[in-house]
């Protein structure tokens, strides 16, 4: 079954074309990676899919529903959740609050029912708490649940972002460089973790990643962007042996 599809999405910023005619096709349950050198337009693809930017042209479909041009909160409610390349937690708030907030979009009580604490609201609040604590436990942050999120070390902040994204009940999860800043051990754990949550939460995963170890290890398929243009698409093996990719991407990282 088709989960996420884009048709020739293009994003222009003034004279710069950040992404050109990007066409994507992800089936349910797949783990698909998007790679490419710095500034290739990967995050811009995420921003178009999640509604942060409206594509200059092209269309985006979630389970065959046209979602082009919707607001980010709408798109999240349709079932697309994301994490950010430069971690964007609610810094002053606790780990628990961060995850609780991501439950808010599904709340049924209105604000008056919430203020007077109707039983209906209390039940929803309790359910949100239980679900959030469960998620926090799942990502291994139970011991720091009441800590301010900005006080966590980097790796834990990344996991908190994933827990928060999961709290929105997504059917597809977009991860923007989840392994950035992690040490090899953490990176390895993360790879396993992503596979596990895919199965546990019945997810489809679309991720941007620089660590080849992660990408080659878990991706079913890979898209490669260079200067906003899709230069290759295929399974890890095909990508590794694609001369265009080696030149544009792997070549660059060897130099670095």
């Amino acid at each position, binding site marked *: 079954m088709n989960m996420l599809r884009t048709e020739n999405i293009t994003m222009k910023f003034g004279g710069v074309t950040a992404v050109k005619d990007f066409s994507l096709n992800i089936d349910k349950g797949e783990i698909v990676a998007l790679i490419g050198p710095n500034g290739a337009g990967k995050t811009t693809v995420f921003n178009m899919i999640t509604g942060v930017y409206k594509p200059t042209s092209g269309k985006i479909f979630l389970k065959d529903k046209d979602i082009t041009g919707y607001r*980010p909160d709408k798109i999240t409610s349709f079932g697309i959740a994301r994490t950010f390349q430069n971690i*964007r937690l609610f810094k002053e708030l606790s780990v628990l609050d961060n995850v609780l*907030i991501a439950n*808010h979009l599904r709340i049924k009580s209105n604000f008056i029912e919430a203020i007077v604490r109707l039983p209906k609201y209390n039940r929803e609040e309790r359910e949100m708490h239980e679900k959030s604590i469960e998620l926090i436990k799942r990502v291994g942050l139970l011991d720091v649940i009441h800590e301010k999120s900005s006080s966590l070390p980097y790796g834990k902040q990344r996991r908190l972002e994933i827990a928060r994204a999961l709290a929105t009940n997504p059917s597809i999860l977009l991860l923007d460089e989840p392994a950035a800043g992690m040490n090899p051990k953490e990176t390895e754990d993360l790879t396993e973790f992503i596979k596990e949550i895919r199965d546990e939460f019945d997810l489809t995963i679309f991720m941007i990643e620089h660590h080849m170890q992660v990408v080659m290890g878990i991706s079913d398929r890979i898209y490669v962007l260079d200067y906003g243009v899709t230069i290759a698409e295929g399974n890890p093996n095909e990508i590794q042996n694609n001369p265009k990719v080696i030149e544009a991407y792997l070549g660059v990282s060897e130099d670095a």
Partner: protein
Amino acid sequence: MKRKKYNIIFSVILIILLFVILYFAKLYLDDYKSRILNLCAIYTILGLSLNLINGFTGLFSLGHAGFMAIGAYTTALLTMPIPIKEQNFFMAPLISPLDKIVWPFLPSLILGGILAAFVAFLIGAPVLRLKGDYLAIATLGFSEIIRVIFTNTQRLTNGALGLKGIPNTTNLFWSFGIAVITLIVMILLINSSYGRAFKAIREDEIAAENMGINLFKHKILAFTIGAFFAGIGGGLLGNLIGAIDPLMFRFFLTYNILLIIVLGGMGSITGTVISAFIITISMEALRFLDESINLGFFTIRGIPGLRMVVFSVLLMMVILFFRNGLMGNKEITLDILANKLSKKPLTKGGVKR
């Protein structure tokens, strides 16, 4: 959840205690002192409502004086007796049906709050799409526009002459009663899922929106609720002082409230309450700065406005050196007090750094 039960019981006891104290205050305090206490309660309401918008939701709004004006005029016009209305509107008669109706205080206050909220809802649509400084300028402009409108609607507001002889309905029970209700509503709101959504918007709009929070809906909600309580605060103020005119609702008034929340801590309910009392009382205590001081052999000429210079310097100091104000975004809760009193080490529910 035994603790929750205790908290509720303890809060009820505190509130009863407060009203017993007020009862005696009303008996023994002179007019001047009870007026200052009234002002403390009213500024608490105003501070809490502005803090909801600015401190908790992170919207830099400077429109409070405008909302207060709407509430104050509504309440005054509805509660003034008919002969007083006729005396006031000698230039041009008050439009009907306002010239013939007199409402009790409570419904007048509530309608004042609702009208302020309604106007906030209307201007929120265009204004809340702006961010930061632009929002501040737009709300400030709105507040001034309200003032100019009220100066020019002779048959509704009596223009620049203002309204005099407003019944002095506001007393300690009214002002503290409503302050307590406002406090409870704010605590319940801030600690609900909606309150968390407000804080999420304050922390990071982009992240909040990507976590499914409808930014506009929640901003306008906070803005409207804040305006509602500002309107009620305005109504209480008008019926405390007994006379209002458009000049009373200059930016200066918003500035005072801003001072309260900045000093108390943006995003702290307890901080706002404490600071509302401190600022209101010291504003009165420092009144001598504006007036002449007679030292017997010679008089120091007072400089009108010197008091505000002191407060402005204070505001600058707070912003420069104590960014977080008295409380930052922390709270003094009953749990913390209980822990302090029993000298137990702080447990999970206590202060967390």
